[in-house]
Every structure is written in C-alpha cells, then in structure tokens.
C-alpha cells in the first residue's frame, strides 16, 4: 500500500521575504524544526522522538535529520507502521513523565491513532482529576501538499481544535516553528503541532533572539503579521503567506489589510482577533480545510458573540472546497484557497466589488 509520497524539496513558487528584518540570517522552516528538536533533546534527556522513518531515513521530510546520530537509537525510535500502537506507547510513556515527540508522516495517518490522541491523551488529565498529565507532542505535516490526492490532503486543525484537553498549534514562519515547537515540547499537556509540507523548504529571516536556545513563543497568542486599518484577515500555516500576498495586492488598491497569524488554533486568541475587528470593522477568515465546522466558523462566531456591534460587513469565510481533494492539478488549485480568492473576499467585505456567485 502506498503510504506516503516522499517529495524532494519542492521550492515554492514565491519566496516569503519580509521587508522588516534587522538581521540577514535566514532559516528554512525545516532547519527551524530540526534545531528546535535538537536543542530540546539536548536540554532534557526525557525528550525522545518516535515515528516512522525518523531515524535512519533522517525523517520522511528530513525534519529529524542528524538526530539519530547525535542521540542514538534509544532516543530516536524508528517505529513499525503502527500508528495506534506507537501513539499509545507515547501516551503511556508520557503518563510516567517522559516527553515523547510523536511524528506522524502526515496528519492523515493520525486518524489511525486518533483514539489515543483524544481518549487517552487529551482526556486523561480531566478523567484522573489532575493526577496524570500527558506532556506529549504530536507533530507532522498537515493539509494539502502538491498532487497527493484526497487521502493525503486533509487539514485536521478543526477536528483537533474542537477537543478540550488538547492544545493545537500551527506555525507559519521559521520563528513560529522554532518558538512554538519548543513551547510545545516544554508544555505539560498534549499538543498537536500542525506543520505544512510545502512550507518546510521556505526560508524566513530570523533574529538573534530566535536563535537563542531558550527562545519560546507563548501558546495561545496570535501574531499580527501586518498592521492595517480596513479589513482583518486571519489565517494560519501556509495561508498566512497567501494572506500577506493578498494584503500587498490590496494595498495597491487602497485597502489596508491587517493580517493575523493565528499560530495557536486551540486556545484561540480571541482577544487579539476581536481587538483587530473592533479596529477595522471587517473580517475575512482564511483556512485550507473544509468549510463546515471549520476554524473560520469558530472565529466568525467568536467575533459575532463579542464584537457584533463593530462589524460593518458580513464576515467572509474562505476555506477549501467542500470536496475531497482532487488529484488533477487544475482542480486541486481550485479546491484550495488562492491569493485571488482572498483579495476578492476582502474587497467584498469592503463593499468594493459585486459579490460573485462563482465562489464555492
């Protein structure tokens, strides 16, 4: 059974160069994750990695490159293809204070282990009334890649984020990747860490502070990637890059968009989102996953509950198409939000264009 398609590094079609770096050092997301794992493993001997191909293959996407040589096979465990089994083993080890980092080759495979993520990891602290905490991290690529078909392309942010007892993080840049992964590993609760395969090869500038081994980002706080005053665009993971591009295009048309990088899907940073909407009065939520019961739906409700009086236009929700991911490249392109969709939605929110019936 073909389990995964092992990509060579696919260079993205655009580069994410920020205009405001103070240092010239650039780091890819892959290097950021690798260095975060390396530093956390060397700081705490209880941290260990587990997953398919994390050791001798250097990681299915090379995230764990070099770690087997450095820490040995007892701390970097190549597992058989048994998601349910090894996830449960990770949870059991975490019950006893070890800090496993369980890698799923993609989060689609986590569905074979979802019983353990939800029932024995997320719920245990509650069921045991605080006796047993589970300091485990589940990480891996999430969402669509390029041409991998329906069973390898689903975004799981909404599923995991609806479950109390889990923390769900989704980084965008290298700074996010480093800081959030370190925070996740140090966190005493189960964390689902949703990466994105297409971002692994992207380079971002990083400051010296980010490179420091004690650098850590708070869980539950979003980042305002770009300040604006006309419309708020929320996004996470790869969509942040698209939103930033859309903001550039909108700026040329006189619309100043504020882009929020959610970073943390659970707990959702409702205060930052609401504060921004109160400032701009318009909201566009962007996500890659299925629209029904998605992250955008939750953000929309949160804004309506808390800032309804401040909204000047209906909330626009951009999500992936409500279909399993098709394989053909042109269909795939239509099934995932593109920059043009975000631009159109923002214009609709600003009453600058006639609403189109063609959007899915």
């Amino acid at each position, binding site marked *: 059974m073909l389990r995964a398609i092992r990509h060579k590094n696919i260079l993205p079609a655009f580069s994410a160069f*920020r205009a405001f*770096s103070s240092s010239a050092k650039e780091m890819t997301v892959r290097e950021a994750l690798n260095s975060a794992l390396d530093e956390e493993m060397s*700081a705490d*001997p*209880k941290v260990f990695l587990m997953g398919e191909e994390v050791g001798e293959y250097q990681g299915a996407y090379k995230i764990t490159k070099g770690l087997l040589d450095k820490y*040995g*096979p*007892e701390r970097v465990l190549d*597992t*058989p293809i*048994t998601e*349910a*089994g*090894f996830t*449960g*083993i*990770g*949870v*059991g*080890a975490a*019950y006893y*204070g*070890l800090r496993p980092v369980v890698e799923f080759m993609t989060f689609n495979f986590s569905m074979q282990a979802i*019983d*353990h993520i939800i*029932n*024995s990891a997320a719920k*245990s*602290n*509650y*069921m*045991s*009334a*605080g*006796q047993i*905490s589970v*300091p485990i991290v589940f990480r891996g690529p999430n969402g669509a890649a390029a041409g991998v078909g329906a069973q390898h392309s689903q975004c799981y942010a909404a599923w995991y984020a609806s479950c109390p*007892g889990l*923390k769900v993080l989704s980084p965008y840049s290298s*700074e996010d990747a480093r*800081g959030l992964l*370190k*925070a996740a590993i*140090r*966190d*005493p*609760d189960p964390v689902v860490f949703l990466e994105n395969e297409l971002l692994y090869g992207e380079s971002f500038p*990083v*400051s010296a*502070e*980010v490179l420091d081994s004690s*650098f*850590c*980002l*708070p*869980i*539950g*706080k979003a*980042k305002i990637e770009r300040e604006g005053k006309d419309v708020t665009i929320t996004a996470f993971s790869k969509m942040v890059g698209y939103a930033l591009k859309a903001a550039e295009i909108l700026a040329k048309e006189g619309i100043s968009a504020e882009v929020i990088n959610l970073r943390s899907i659970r*707990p959702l940073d409702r205060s930052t989102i609401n504060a921004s909407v109160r400032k701009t009065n318009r909201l566009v939520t962007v996500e890659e996953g299925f629209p029904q019961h998605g992250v955008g739906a939750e953000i929309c409700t949160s804004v309506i509950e808390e800032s309804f009086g401040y909204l000047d236009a209906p909330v626009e929700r951009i999500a992936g198409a409500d279909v399993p991911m098709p394989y053909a490249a042109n269909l795939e392109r239509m099934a995932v939000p593109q920059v043009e969709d975000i631009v159109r939605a923002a214009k609709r929110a600003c009453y600058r264009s006639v609403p189109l019936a063609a959007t899915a």
Partner: protein
Amino acid sequence: MPLSATNFAQPRPVPVGIRSNEKSLSSDPFRFRFRGSPSFLGSPHSLRFNPTPPLKLAIPHCRRSAAAAVTDVSNGTMVKSSANMLITKEEGLELYEDMILGRFFEDMCAQMYYRGKMFGFVHLYNGQEAVSTGFIKLLKKEDTVVSTYRDHVHALSKGVPARAVMSELFGKATGCCRGQGGSMHMFSKEHNLIGGFAFIGEGIPVATGAAFSSKYRREVLKEASADHVTLAFFGDGTCNNGQFYECLNMAALWKLPIIFVVENNLWAIGMSHLRATSDPEIWKKGPAFGMAGVHVDGMDVLKVREVAKEAIERARRGDGPTLVECETYRFRGHSLADPDELRDPAEKARYAARDPISALKKYMIENKLANEQELKSIEKKIDEVLDDAVEFSDESPLPPRSQLLENVFADSKGFGIGPDGKYRCEDPKFTQGTAHV
C-alpha cells in the same frame, strides 16, 4: 556519544515458543471438543464445550513442583506434600482477603446500582478474582497496572482504598478521581493504576508505553532502581483488535517489561470467543511474535500466581514480555445492563462450581493453613469495610460546580514552561506578545 546497539534497535532472535510445562492442550478433551464442529459458527449453543465430567480429569500440569494446586484438591486426586505448600498461611489469608474484597465489593456495587446510587455503565468482575489477585498481589507499589472498564477489582487489588473506589462510583468528590472518571476510568497515580479505559484495546498501548518508560528510565536516564513492570489486563474480545498485535510486536521487538494478561472469559458481551476468533487459542499468539505464551487456569488463584511469578520475574530481569492467557469466567453479565441471555446456564453452572474463592477456601482448610473461623472472620471484616465504604460514599459531597472546568489542562495558560522551570505566563515579557523579528 555512541550508544551500543540496544534492545530498542536490534530485533531479537525469535525464541522457541515457551509454554508452561504442560501436556499438549489439543489432547485435553475438556477444552477442545469443538475442534470437529462445522465451520459456520452460528448459535453459540452449538459450540458449547462437551466435556466428559471435567473434575475427574487430571488437569494439565502447569508446574514442575509436586505441590498441589487448588483444583487438584477439589478433584480428590491430590498429591500432597506439606513441605511443598505453594503458599504460607499469611499469603493464603492475604489472597483470600483480596478475593473476598473483590467479590463482596462487586456484589455491593450491584446492590447500589439497583438502588440508584450508581449509574451509567458498571461492569462487574465476579468470578475472575483469581486473575486479579493472583497477579497483582505479587507486584510492588511502583509497578503499573492498566485495565479496561472492568477495573474495580484491579483497583482494589492494587491498593486503592475501597472508600475511594466506592465514592468514585457514586460520583462523589471524594472518589479516587474526584468523581470525574467513574466506573470505567479509575486512575490512581499513587498506586500506579493508570486506567481504566473504555475502548477495547486502548489500554494495551498505554501499558506498553508505561513499560517503555520503565526501560527508558533504566537505560537512558540511568536510574538503576527503575525495574518496574507493567501488567495490562484485557479480555478475549480485545485479542482480535489491531492494537493488541501492534503492541505484541513492539513489546517483543524492544523487550519491554510488560505482561499481557488475557482474561479469557469466553464472552465479549454476547459474542462468543469461538464465533469471533479464527484461532481461539490466544496464548499461541505470543510465540508468533517472539515472546513467551502461557495458558493457565484462571479459576485457580495458585496456578495463576505461579505463572505470574515467572512472568513478572522475566520482565523484571529485562528478558522481555510474556503473554498469559487465563481461562476464566464472569458469573454476571457483561454489565449491569446486560440481560445475559445468550450464555448457556449449564456452562454458567459448570464454572460456578469452580468458583475461585470456594476453591481456595477448600484448599486452605484441607491443608490446615486456616480454619473456618479465621476465614469467616475475614469475611466479616470485609463486610464491615464495605459498609463503611458505602456509608462514607453516601455522606460524601457531590463535586462542587467549580470542578467542572478544572483539570482540563495541567497548565491552562498554555504558555508552557520556560528554561528556568517556571510557567512562562508568569514572565511579563510573554504576556505582552511575541518576539519581534
């Protein structure tokens, strides 16, 4: 720092299946009459054991010693040598007390349930006490037990006080999980009982992980005293679940200190084990993965204890896992809501005659380890313990409203722990925002 290739990395050479020292089971007519039956497994009635009067048979020997087992005594074919008693008087009384506690507790649960004090799903353990007592009484406090939803007696054997278990069942704040877990989710960190899982097979990987942590602590963290073993209890139905095989594989691959204890009571709710399993001999699945597979009479606490001793010692030495299949029976239905119509009354009667408690009682009396009076006084004592537990639970308060939202997270601010070991949410720099590029 190069680590020598350890058990984690190298697959072990597959050992020959190690079985307990017994005659070939297929020659035992008591167990395997069904072999000739048709391949379509329809009604379980056609698959009933069709034994010759069982108690006259020589039970397959599970031990090498000449000491008598409980069932040999009740056969009347006992070969007795008083110098070779399997247990001392103290041990015998301890085992008896534990089994009586389990039995009386479960009976009290049934009473309380029908009075409305207990609710939801309650799965009782009557009849299987020999397995719990036989295994758990050999453990240290630091050893781990993982169970399923039929976990009351495992909790009691492991040392969780009857009061705490009863209050938990009543849903009171003084329960072992403050009323948040319930019948199916007993957790006690102090006694190393880590569940209590409702999903079939869910506890097995968690138990394997606990065993993994014991090995990790010893070998990577260099804690020399970390030789804790883990027991995973589960039933015959679970043995058809994928997670069971995944864990047999990994436990044998990495030589983890775990014992997989199958409480084969022949029934998964209303599904007979024989209807559900292509090869019903579960112990055979151990050697298929390279570990010892043992079958034992789970209605005989002394036999269980012997097998348990060997398995626990093997795990503690570092020689890897064991799969133990205990043939046992539950006298009540699957749960208190189960009308239990599918099981043949003759089968129930047959097993009721092999009640582990009466068998141990008979053994102790006939071997002069205890007299009727001492055993009665134990029963009386347990009666009092249980009356006290019920009274305590009745009088305990319900959980307060504030408890609803507590304990979802260990660290609810969600900022994690910084390098200085303190919660980062207490660091003012963090609560303000993020690092700026």
